[in-house]
């Protein structure tokens, strides 16, 4: 029985069958990849247990085929060497798969980092102090999958269910009226049209104070909130100029803190309140900004600033009253919906709401949407503004030449002329204060693109009260949101798993060379310093295409980069740790030598040489 099994695994026919089935599987996988992208091919084929099984079958076949012929005859030298080589390669690959690390490390210029982005997805839950409660791996699928993907139970039969996985998502912007007073920025849905085109777009920002700007076809659209009657007057004046929007205040460079308390609202320049107690008018309350974090991230359960790049501006705020009651708040400019109070125990908080209006560039929807026919032409400007009392929406049209074509109050649904290029505009809807939600929308089929889509999740939150309608929340990869679980805020973050290296890499400078006379990239180069505090190493190195950095068993390759107007460049390294590398090289050499021996050496070469020797001795 065992013998016949051995024979079966050693048989040539099994070899032919397993080789052909592997070929068929591989062919199918590449077709799937062209339809659904690289990640899907991995999820459907290369990363599955049965694919590993198929390789394992092949390995067994190769091994048995060599073993069954033992003791080997001399003419089988090539055959045995070749099969040995294949086994070594397969074993090396297994080691890589099980023990290796393969991820990406993006570093912003002039910052250091050690956070490697891996390929697998995780869903993490954090408490209000940003301490990790628990992390769950998220199972991927190649197409959109509904059903219970993850079920997370909380006390009192409250639960959060991940019930949709979206493998390829584009963010769809959903703008709606702000549910909370003091939160949100003005938003307007504008339609522009003439005989040649018709376009519709939401114009909405994150910051009420600074105008949000967007290019729509031949026009620059802006929207802002007017805070005082002076601003209102200036906006509606018929004299040329850009309106009051551009006024920039140096002391205001960090942004504004909007404090709402007892039906009042105060705007505090952050720079003035930084490390200074400021009292709030008509109250006994005092507020101070303890820390300004331009690029807030959670590290080791603490909120720190990753760099001075204002990518995720946040403020840590202290609030006290005359009785000595002290509250700590954290407020994010980009995530106004986060609850700000730490350690709220209900009932005894001071009832103050904060909103941080950062002056830094935030993640706006579309900033640049150049349509071909208008390239190079100067654009006209259509500005909207919400009156201080939030009751009216005004418009102001400035022609491409710079003159004011018209100002007035907007009538919803009525087409109005801009007075240039025959373009009319119409406001379909507007909100004085709106919140935007990014809802992941499934992209079914891709082809020919780089396939760099984000993934998305749908979560349903079932409250303990059976009668209450479950709340649906959407999460796009690399985003977080706060949910109210059992009366306490819990932050749910979704994204790629991270690996912390035991040392950091500091990116001194990223340079991109171009082909002469073009803007086509020709070379990429990163000047970095390895900062290993444990071993006291400070090593300067240059990483360029095909010239990786090797440190601590890890290889760092120049993989790609991100360059955007007004932001420091980001260099992306591919980080690799591969304990099976040397085995794969060894196996490869052995295999090729084996094939050469098999095909090109006279099959009886060794017989002859060694046979003759026998005779001569």
């Amino acid at each position, binding site marked *: 029985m065992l013998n016949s099994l051995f024979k079966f695994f050693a*048989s*040539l026919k099994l*070899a*032919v069958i397993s*080789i*052909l089935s*592997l*070929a068929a599987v*591989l*062919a199918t*996988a*590449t077709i799937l*990849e*062209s339809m659904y*992208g*690289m990640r899907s091919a*991995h999820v459907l084929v*290369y990363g599955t247990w049965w694919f590993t099984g198929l390789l394992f079958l092949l390995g067994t076949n190769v091994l048995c085929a060599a073993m069954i012929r033992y003791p080997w005859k001399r003419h089988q030298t090539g055959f045995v060497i070749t099969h040995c080589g294949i086994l070594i390669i397969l074993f090396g*690959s297994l080691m890589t798969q099980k023990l290796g690390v*393969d991820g990406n490390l993006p570093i912003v210029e002039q910052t250091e980092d050690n956070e490697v982005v891996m390929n697998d997805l995780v869903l993490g839950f954090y408490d209000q102090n940003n301490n990790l409660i628990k992390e769950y791996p998220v199972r991927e699928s190649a197409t959109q999958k509904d059903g219970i993907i993850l079920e997370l139970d909380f006390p009192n039969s409250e639960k959060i269910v991940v019930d949709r996985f979206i493998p390829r998502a*584009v963010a769809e912007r959903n703008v709606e009226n702000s549910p909370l007073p003091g939160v949100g920025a003005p938003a307007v849905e504008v339609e522009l049209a003439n005989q*040649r*085109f018709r376009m519709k777009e939401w114009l909405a920002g994150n910051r009420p104070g600074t105008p949000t700007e967007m290019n729509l076809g031949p026009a620059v659209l802006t929207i802002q909130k007017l805070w005082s009657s002076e601003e209102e007057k200036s906006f509606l004046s018929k004299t040329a100029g850009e309106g009051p929007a551009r006024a920039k205040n140096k002391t205001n460079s960090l942004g504004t803190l909007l404090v709402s308390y007892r039906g009042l609202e105060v705007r505090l320049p952050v720079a003035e309140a930084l490390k200074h107690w400021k009292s709030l008018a008509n109250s006994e309350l005092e507020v101070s900004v303890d820390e300004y974090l331009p690029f807030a991230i959670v590290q080791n359960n603490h909120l720190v600033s990753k760099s001075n790049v204002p990518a995720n501006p946040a403020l840590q705020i202290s609030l006290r009253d005359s009785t000595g009651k002290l509250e700590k708040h954290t407020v994010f400019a980009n995530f106004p919906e986060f609850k700000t109070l730490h350690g709220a125990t209900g009932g005894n908080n001071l009832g103050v709401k904060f909103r941080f209006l950062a002056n830094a560039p935030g993640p706006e929807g579309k900033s640049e*949407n150049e*349509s*071909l*026919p208008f390239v190079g032409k100067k654009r006209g400007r259509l500005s909207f503004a919400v009156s201080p009392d939030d009751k009216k929406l005004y418009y102001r049209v400035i022609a491409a030449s710079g003159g004011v074509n018209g100002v007035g109050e907007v009538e919803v649904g009525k087409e109005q002329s801009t007075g240039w290029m025959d373009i009319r505009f119409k406001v379909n809807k507007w909100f004085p204060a709106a919140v935007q939600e990014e809802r992941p929308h499934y992209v079914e089929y*891709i*082809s*020919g*693109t*780089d*396939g760099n889509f984000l993934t998305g999740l749908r979560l349903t939150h079932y409250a303990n009260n059976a009668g209450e309608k479950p709340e649906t929340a959407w999460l796009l990869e690399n985003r977080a949101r706060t949910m109210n679980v059992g009366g306490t805020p819990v932050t749910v973050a979704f994204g790629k798993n991270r690996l912390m290296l035991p040392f950091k890499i500091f990116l001194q400078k990223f340079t991109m060379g*171009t*082909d*002469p*006379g*073009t803007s*086509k*990239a*020709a070379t*990429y180069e990163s000047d970095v310093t390895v900062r290993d505090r444990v071993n006291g190493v400070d090593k300067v190195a240059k990483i360029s*295409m*095909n010239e*990786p950095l090797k440190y601590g068993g890890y*290889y760092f*390759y120049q*993989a790609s980069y991100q360059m955007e107007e007004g932001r420091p460049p980001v260099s992306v390294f*591919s980080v*690799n740790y*591969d304990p099976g*590398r040397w085995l*794969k*090289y060894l196996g*490869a050499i052995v295999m*090729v030598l084996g*094939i*050469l021996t098999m*095909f090109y050496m006279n*099959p009886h070469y060794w017989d002859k040489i060694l046979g003759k020797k026998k005779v001569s001795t």
Partner: protein
Amino acid sequence: VTKLLLLLAVTSATVLNATPSVRKDFNWQELSRLAIQDRGRLKPIDTFARETVLFITGKSGWAGMIPIEVVFSWLVTFENNWENEPFVRVDYSPLKKLIKLDPTSNYFSPVELSKSDELKKILRDAVEKDNRKEKLSDIEKKAVQIQNQLGLLEGIVRGDALSILPNPAGINQNWYSLAYLIDSSQGQLPYIPEDREKLATDLKSVLNAYLNSDAASWNASLPNLATLIRTSLSHGSYPTESSLSREIQYNKLRPFRLSWILYVLAFATLLIFQVTKARVSQYLGAAFLFSAFGVHAYGFFMRCMIAGRPPVTNMFESVIWVTWGCVLFSLFIWAAYKNSVIPTAASVFAIVGLVLADNLPAVLDPSIQPLEPVLRSNFWLTIHVLTITLSYAAFALSLCLGNVVLGNYLFRTSNTQWIQQASLYMYRAVQIGVVLLAAGTILGGVWADYSWGRFWGWDPKEVWALTALLLYLAVLHGRYSGWLRGFGFVAATVMSFLGVLMAWYGVNFVLGVGLHSYGFGSGGLVWVSLYIGLQIAFILAAYAKNLRVHGPGGAKVSIFPKN
């Protein structure tokens, strides 16, 4: 009137009288030997003009004018003579129908095309799709091509596609285009005022000579302008005379066209020998074959010298290399077995490959372009690509021989002796291929490890190289196991070439995904599918005949050396 002309104060009356006709006795050589910076490379204007005219008109000249003359005429007399002239090639019928162009014509005027609102709409959709990272439809791709054709034309007319003014700061710095001569930009030219002045004067006399059809003054004034640009303006930052003339020579010689013609002659004479057994035709055939092979190699070498790297990065270059390798291996096996059917079969592949390369510039782009960053100055890249593609050459040889054997099964069925012999040659070609493909795939792993830190990443190109290898391995193991004998071996070997076809062509032209994206292209799918269909039909026909003549099991052929 072109701004350039206005600036140089050439009177518009002269322009109006100028005709786009052939200028008699004009010496264009001096102009074509000047260098231009185009798409990241310095090349002679000769090359630029040939590529441009081919791209815009689909032809290698227009109305009797050579390419450089056409480009010059566009620059100078576009608005009077060309704007309404139908010369922009649009030959994709579905697009023509959609944008309401005359379906019977393949040529349209720039004005007609740029006025088309339908075209604009398609382009606007294409831009939006592109923003959303969606794949463009064939119609949109062709529309974008029209846009690029018109864009290039506009660039020439405005002068900013013509970067012929050297940058004295260094040969690889950005050069200056003729558009810099216009208005305020002139001040940005890093030349001393006298040179700038002289540039304007010289250019003006050249333009006037052209507009007045004055050959004598053209031939007299052009060298002045050329010398000024080459020496005074460049301060030594200029490509050498020899590198420019080498490329011009390459353009003129068209070595790959010459070599396919010679391969045709070789094939014909060797075929005559196969039929008549006349010794003289064998010698003649060998002579043609060796000269074709020599010219082929020379062309390849020239291209290496011009590009400064081995030509291994696009489909055109790999076709050139693989056809050459196929003939090379046929010479080896010919030398070993002394049967001239081997080079005869190989020359068919060389002819097909080179004719395609010579005549399908849209699919197989013959222009020399700079490398993608990841491919630069990399030893392993060159080695792994050359090794893998050489294995394709060996497999192609086995394919050609296989089809000859199949032909014998079909038409000379009783000829088992011969079939046996030819199958052995096939087997040798497969052996060469398997070693090269195994080694090349591994070298690819070495390169990937070296460049990306991954020995193996399941990238479609490497997966298909592996699949092709597995197919041939299955054939070899099938033969050892006794499943594949005689006909089976031949048929399976021929079919395995489909794996090579997929790895070589399919991944880049059909799947269009993965990291090897620098070789992507499109086109030819219909023809490749047609070939596959015919190949399968041919195998089935031969199989049926084999069974009918020799009964169940087919002809008894035991071809292989025992090992």
